[in-house]
């Protein structure tokens, strides 16, 4: 066993995410831009997927940026277009229709998603803050995040815990999580599912089996329940027996540092 001083929060987030992945899963990883956004959208998810492959899920597959099962031994040093175009991969499907069909056919098991607003029922907003028609802050739109939440079996929310992110009710529902809780998601006609876990830099949350409210499951060793609640605009369900998030094992740390991300391309900031 390692103790908390021996791993970074990013490494903890990687192992927490990897534990949510199962053998045979097909994982959707989106595009990230740069800095922390890249680490959250691509870096941690890819490291987690590879860690799962190296440990308990050898037959897990990754879909990234229209590339299916790219050769992760050859992650390009930069992600300009040419590196993406020529990155060795098993399949680069003919146009985005194929990816969209794979989504709506329900072929993906897990996706990683983030948003500037996340509410107590796991609905996400990446479209607009304030009034939709004349917003105080226009965001990026929808991308496929709506589709992830509609079709992927076990979407994972991966983000940093912040008071203005974790809101009671999103201003706009870009992506339907558990909607208004209870059976409201399937009542609206959506397939069963919705986000399964929220992995943050301070804690891991799930959703209550019946009410579908966000529920604090574990707190990282570097944080406390009080600190966690202080970073949220709503009060999540808190189990009496909130545990400490399981620390990465020394073997996991070795894999992350020596095999998966030796050049520190994935886990930079």
């Amino acid at each position, binding site marked *: 066993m390692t103790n908390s001083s021996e791993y970074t929060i990013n490494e903890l987030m990687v192992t927490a995410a990897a534990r949510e992945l199962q053998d045979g899963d097909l994982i959707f990883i989106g*595009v990230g*831009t*740069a800095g922390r956004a890249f680490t959250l959208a691509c870096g941690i998810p890819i490291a987690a997927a590879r860690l799962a492959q190296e440990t308990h899920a050898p037959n897990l597959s990754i879909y990234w*940026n*229209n590339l299916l099962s790219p050769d992760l031994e050859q992650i390009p040093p930069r*992600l*300009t*277009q*040419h590196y*993406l*175009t*020529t990155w060795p991969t098993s399949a*680069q*499907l*003919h*146009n*985005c*229709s194929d*990816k*969209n069909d794979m*989504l*709506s056919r329900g072929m993906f098991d897990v996706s990683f998603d983030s948003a500037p607003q996340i509410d107590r029922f796991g609905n996400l*907003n990446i*479209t*607009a803050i304030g009034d*939709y*028609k*004349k*917003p*105080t*802050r*226009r965001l*990026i*739109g*929808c*991308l*496929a*995040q*709506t*589709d992830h939440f*509609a*079709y992927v079996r076990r979407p994972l929310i991966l983000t940093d815990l912040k008071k203005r992110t974790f809101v009671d009710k999103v201003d*706009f*529902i*870009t*992506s*339907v999580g558990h*909607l208004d809780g209870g059976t409201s*998601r399937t009542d*609206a*006609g*959506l*397939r069963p599912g919705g986000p399964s876990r929220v992995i943050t830099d301070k804690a891991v949350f799930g959703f209550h089996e019946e009410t579908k409210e966000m529920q604090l499951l574990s707190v990282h060793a570097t944080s406390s329940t009080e600190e966690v609640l202080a970073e949220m605009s709503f009060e999540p369900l808190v189990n009496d027996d909130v545990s400490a998030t399981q620390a990465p094992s020394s073997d996991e740390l070795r894999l992350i540092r020596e095999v998966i991300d030796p050049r520190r391309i994935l886990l930079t900031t």
Partner: protein
Amino acid sequence: MKSKLVHLADAAALIPNGASLTIGGSIIRRSPVALIRELIRQEKSGFTVLAYPAGFTTDLLAGAGAVDRVEAVYEGLFQFGFAYNFRRRVEAGELDIRDFSEVAMAARFRAAASGVPFMPTDALLGTGMAEHNPEQIREISCPFTGRKLHAVDAATSDFTLLHGYVADEYGNVQFPVARDADDLDPVMAKAAQRLIVTVEKIVPHSEILKTPNLTYIPHTWVEAVVEVPFGAHPLSCDGFYDEDEAHMQDYQLLMKDGRFAEYADRYIRGAVDHAEYLSAALTPARIFELSVR
């Protein structure tokens, strides 16, 4: 077969004010940027833009005040940040924005490509997009299963503007075997009412005949084809050149401060045509740096 080769200015001149435009490519990759610049040069306006992920071209049009409505899955400039011009206009309540998810937007283009007025989808159930857009997203019930679904309307537009790789003079457009297929260009081409394609290079018809499986836009779909080398610059054209990061960063610095006019004076209105644009924006050495062929 008829030659469809025209000059850039003549292609842009086909497009009237107020037209709806489907614009291909993806964010910062292989969009018909030179053609969009030419539209701005010709002071066209009042456009509706349909895109899959919209990006640089839509932001240029927003900067020029030439776009009134956008239907897309995303608006931004990927690693270069926000689409400032676009965002400013939306936040001012001046731009009619219709958001769709990728599955829903692709279904809309596919409906147009198939000649049917709608597609069924369950992607948007429960979302704000559906709530705010009953005009284009309507609840239906599956006649077989009774399942609740949405009908989304076909994404038809007056013109479809794409940037391709190579074509012959008749408009048979081909892709290289190694390419990034993270776009909807082939579907948009099929869905087009009037299709204008700019390409990096015009090649002899005899070259096209050798590899017909690489033709993704056949000549009968095309109204006009234009040879525009570096026609996607400062974006990338996969297989030809990479994105021009320095140019994009400079663009963003100006746009953040609302200085579109300055940019346009230098690169669009100040350059009478694409050749002058290339001289203003690139040096021969820089062209070699960006090239990946």
